[in-house]
């Protein structure tokens, strides 16, 4: 049995692992089989993480965080959690390969997943012109026309990135103003390749084998138009990834995991949550990292108060 298992390997998970490992808790990080490193693995330059005045590539930052956790004894497993039993003193974590890990504490830091538009053809054409990741797929749209759906920072980031490849980037937004930061808006409005389409929602995606266009509907008067594009990038936000804990952990009204005040304590003793899965507001790498710190310290304090014989069981059996 482990003293601590951390589920998730983004900035929250790895920062929690660094703190837990330095506290000699020998954390096990369940990093996921294909999404390890979290959201930053899909980004390019990160310019706002303190300590890197010249910027750092997102994947490089995550590899460094992982190395820092491993340096102090954290173990990483590249597998997915398929089921959790979180009630009771000993938590059970079922993995994709059929094995089961036991732990006295769990830090749940699974982040969030991209929101879909909810259109019939969205999944069918996913990978055939419909994408959630401009940095992954943008290069395939050289000299093509593409649409980005959304109005926040991530939508503008995707749109600006896509101008490197595409001839025209339409930014389709449901309202007449953007939520994105002023700096991002200025950059987008100044870009001759980006064309704003205000007050428009997406009603259809056209194409048999690949995307050939999208159908827009005006949010003001319902007028329908067709936009001739070969790619559609969806950037309408993300939802906290909580399906593994439904029915076990309390959620907030907005779907994040409910925690006690500024702590990471969930409604179950010994279970802590950190990162985007608890944060409906800020969702930054650095706030997630801070949140991971809080969770590791909370877990450490919880472990310190457990009966000695229980702790001895955790320490006595190595992985």
């Amino acid at each position, binding site marked *: 049995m482990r003293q601590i298992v951390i589920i998730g390997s983004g900035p929250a998970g790895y920062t929690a692992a660094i703190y837990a490992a330095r506290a000699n808790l020998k954390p096990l990080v369940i990093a*996921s*089989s*294909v*999404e*390890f*490193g979290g959201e930053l*693995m*899909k980004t390019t330059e990160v310019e706002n993480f303190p300590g890197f005045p010249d910027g750092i590539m997102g*994947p490089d930052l995550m590899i460094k965080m992982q190395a820092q956790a491993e340096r102090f004894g954290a173990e990483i497993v590249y*597998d*997915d959690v398929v089921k959790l039993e979180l009630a009771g003193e000993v938590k059970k974590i079922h993995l*994709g390969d059929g094995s089961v890990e036991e732990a006295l504490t769990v830090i749940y830091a699974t982040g969030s997943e991209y929101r879909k538009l909810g259109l019939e053809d969205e999944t069918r054409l*996913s*990978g*055939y*012109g419909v*994408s959630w990741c401009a*940095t*992954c*797929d943008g*290069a*395939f*749209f050289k000299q093509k026309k593409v649409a980005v759906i959304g109005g926040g920072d991530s939508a503008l980031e995707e749109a600006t990135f896509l101008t490197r490849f595409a001839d025209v980037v339409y930014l389709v937004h449901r309202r007449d103003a953007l939520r994105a930061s002023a700096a991002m808006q200025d950059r987008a409005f100044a870009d001759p390749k980006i064309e704003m389409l205000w007050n428009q929602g997406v009603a259809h995606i056209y194409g048999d*084998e*690949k995307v050939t266009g999208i159908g827009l509907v005006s949010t003001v008067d319902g007028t329908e138009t067709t936009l001739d594009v*070969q*790619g559609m990038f969806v950037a309408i936000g993300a939802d906290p990834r909580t399906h593994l804990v439904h029915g076990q952990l309390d959620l907030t009204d907005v779907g994040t995991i409910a925690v006690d005040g500024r702590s990471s304590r969930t409604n179950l003793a010994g279970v802590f949550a950190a990162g985007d899965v608890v944060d409906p507001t800020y969702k930054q790498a650095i706030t997630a990292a801070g949140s991971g710190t809080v969770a590791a310290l909370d877990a450490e304090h919880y472990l310190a108060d457990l009966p000695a014989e229980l702790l001895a069981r955790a320490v006595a059996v190595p992985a």
Partner: protein
Amino acid sequence: MSSAKDVTDASFEADVLNSDKPIMVDFWAEWCGPCRAVSPILDKIAEENAEKLSIVKLNVDDNPVTAEKYGITSIPAMYVFKNGEVVKRVIGAKPKPALEADLAEFLA
């Protein structure tokens, strides 16, 4: 480093289209994080099913003709070829059990 053989625009016909058993092509690129994530999983699947399915890699930056020909717009894209025809398309990095389920007909 992946153990899969690299195929190119030049070798595609000989290596893939003329293959006498089902062969899966992993379309990938250096800059693609999810490609790096799925690569060791594909190596494992290839190793465990060596006599049923070969798995090779094609770098889309170095071999744009083939990538364009098969209309690749998202990577990793894993296409299974049989007798020179595409018989299965899998897009995106997935956990090993999910990939094995997608490829079940070729691994049985």
